[in-house]
């Protein structure tokens, strides 16, 4: 039983990261029906920003307390990543808004490859660790081993997700986003600045991914190609939850965290995790083609 709860905690840690990235996929899809394949790589860039800012702060900055350094690193990463995403949207996706949809998807793939290989060419392929911005304390509660980092990851993600949910549900910007995802043709006529709202969506999605990226960097190594795998897993989370649905993306993220942690427990090796996750996805799509929380779209003749 103890190992079970131990694994649940680990799954929550990993699932939080997946959920944070999945939100970006889901929001962008909800608003312009584009699968933003570059999102995983935007996440990768955010961890590198966190790496450089964190290292710089650790090296030069005046013995700030760990928590403040952490917040500064995360904010810097969020701002830079949001800026990057807005630029990508402005220069790569916006010219294609009237083009066939597939061209935009191919462009997204191209942007993703560009980000990966640009990072590879400039920073190099070696895996890196984030500096120990917050010193690790390991302790046990009720026989479950955990650390302050693990709890920070789980709680910070939960807070960020709650904030995002509030933004989307309660503010004017959120209302505009939901309106655009509901009807792209009439809403601009009602005076909603569509381009600006789309930019804000990209910025929000990317900055949430940056939160995930900074947290991810605390526990795992980072390398230029990590955005591919994490990005795909986050993407599956978004689809399992029902792409375009914010709460679905969160649910899907935690579910995939469970799948990844519990696969090696049940099957002989962790190399089966892709197999399990994607088979699950296939089955789900056959029986519930619009995800767990998505609403079916009926096609009008």
């Amino acid at each position, binding site marked *: 039983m103890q190992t079970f709860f131990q694994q649940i905690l680990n799954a929550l840690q990993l699932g939080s990261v997946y959920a944070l990235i999945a939100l970006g996929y889901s929001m962008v899809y909800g608003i312009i029906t584009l*699968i933003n394949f570059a999102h995983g790589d935007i996440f990768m860039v955010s961890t590198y920003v966190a790496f450089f800012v964190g290292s710089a702060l650790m090296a030069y900055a005046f013995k700030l307390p760990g928590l403040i350094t952490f917040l500064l690193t995360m904010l810097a990463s969020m701002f830079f990543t949001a800026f990057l995403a807005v630029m990508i949207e402005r220069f790569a996706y916006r010219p294609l808004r009237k083009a066939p949809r597939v061209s935009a*998807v191919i462009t997204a793939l191209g942007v993703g490859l560009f980000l990966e290989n640009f990072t590879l060419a400039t920073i190099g392929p070696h895996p890196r660790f984030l500096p120990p911005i917050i010193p690790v304390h390991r302790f046990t509660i009720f026989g479950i081993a955990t650390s302050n980092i693990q709890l920070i990851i789980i709680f910070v993600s939960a807070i960020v997700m709650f904030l995002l949910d509030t933004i989307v549900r309660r503010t004017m910007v959120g209302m505009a986003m939901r309106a655009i995802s509901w009807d792209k043709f009439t809403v601009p006529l009602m005076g909603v600045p569509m381009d600006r709202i789309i930019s804000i969506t990209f910025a929000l999605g990317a900055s949430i991914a940056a939160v995930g990226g900074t947290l991810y960097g605390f526990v795992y190594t980072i390398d230029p190609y990590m955005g591919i795998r994490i990005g795909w897993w986050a993407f599956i989370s978004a689809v399992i939850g029902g792409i375009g649905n914010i709460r679905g993306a969160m649910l899907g993220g935690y579910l995939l965290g469970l799948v990844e942690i519990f696969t090696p427990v049940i099957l002989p090796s962790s*190399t*089966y995790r892709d197999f399990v996750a994607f088979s699950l996805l296939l089955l789900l799509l056959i029986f519930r083609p619009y995800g767990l929380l998505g609403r079916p779209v009926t096609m009008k003749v």
Partner: protein
Amino acid sequence: MGKVKSLISAFKERWDAFYSSWPEPVKRAAVPGLVAFFFLASIFFPAWGIINLYWQQVLIYVGINIILTLSLNLVNGYMGEFSVGHAGFMAVGAYVSSILTVWVFPKLGLSQYTPYLFPLALIIGGLAAGLTGLVVAFPSFRTRGDYLAIVTLSWNMIVKSVLENIEAIGGPRGFMGMPKLTSLAWVYVWVVITIWLIRNLVYSNYGRGALSIREDEIAASLVSVDTRTVKIVTFVIASFFAGIAGGLYAHVLVFINPKAFSILKSTDILVMVYLGGIGSIGGSILGATVYTVLLELLRPLQVWRWVIGPLLLVFLMIFRPHGIMGMREWKFLMPPEERPESWRKERELFVLPKLAGSPPLRCC
């Protein structure tokens, strides 16, 4: 741009004038003659050393990529689905045909005949891949668009993951020991077969069915297109050719591992399809050739070619979202009744008097 365009159209006019001056038998023999000439060239040029080994290798890759691109274009371009897992079918073909040439043929005591049995191995690999094409064809009855894309994507990931977990065929380390059987001539033959079959399919009843599914699936089913059969046929044929290409690929590389058939390979194929333009056989040939040769030429840039390549793709998509020749076709690949000149004749006969002043009909 305008200058280039006027140059091209001037060249076209001259070529048309020159072409129409040919006598009828020469016209008819031109395309088969060229096909035969290139076949002989693909046998003798390497043997005489006119094409060195490096360019042979590049041309072999061009050929394999043409097969892959064309078969994916059948699904993505002509039928309008969005399949992103083509490398999965390629992997099935590659592994099945390699197992045949490495284990089965020697075990049957046929090892000295292996070079002659190579087409058989390829076809069996292709058939196995075609069978797995059903895995994607059945979900496509229920879902469409992005969700079908996800189905194909997960199919690719599952194939890769399964291959990584079967120790008997090397697991993640890969599978080796195939003889190097793929030669320029074999690749050329398969490219011609692929072009010929897919061109005939596209202009057949099934092909028209696929086109109508692309335009509007519900309307297609209302005019009694059997959408399910059309989808099954299209997916199976596309995966069959992907399997053939996989077999050729395995026997030129003489080493395959599951990583070679990851989503990155699928992305490569997608890029070639959309670079060439959807719904066009000529476009697929051009797209595969341009992409493969361009990446070869950029090789001196080392890591940076993978930076410049995607960047070029993004620019292409922004400035020419339909690819090089999206929805257009080379004339010699169309049946005579479909060619623009016969359209024009028909219009003059029947339609033109009524529609005088209307914009010209877009060919194909």
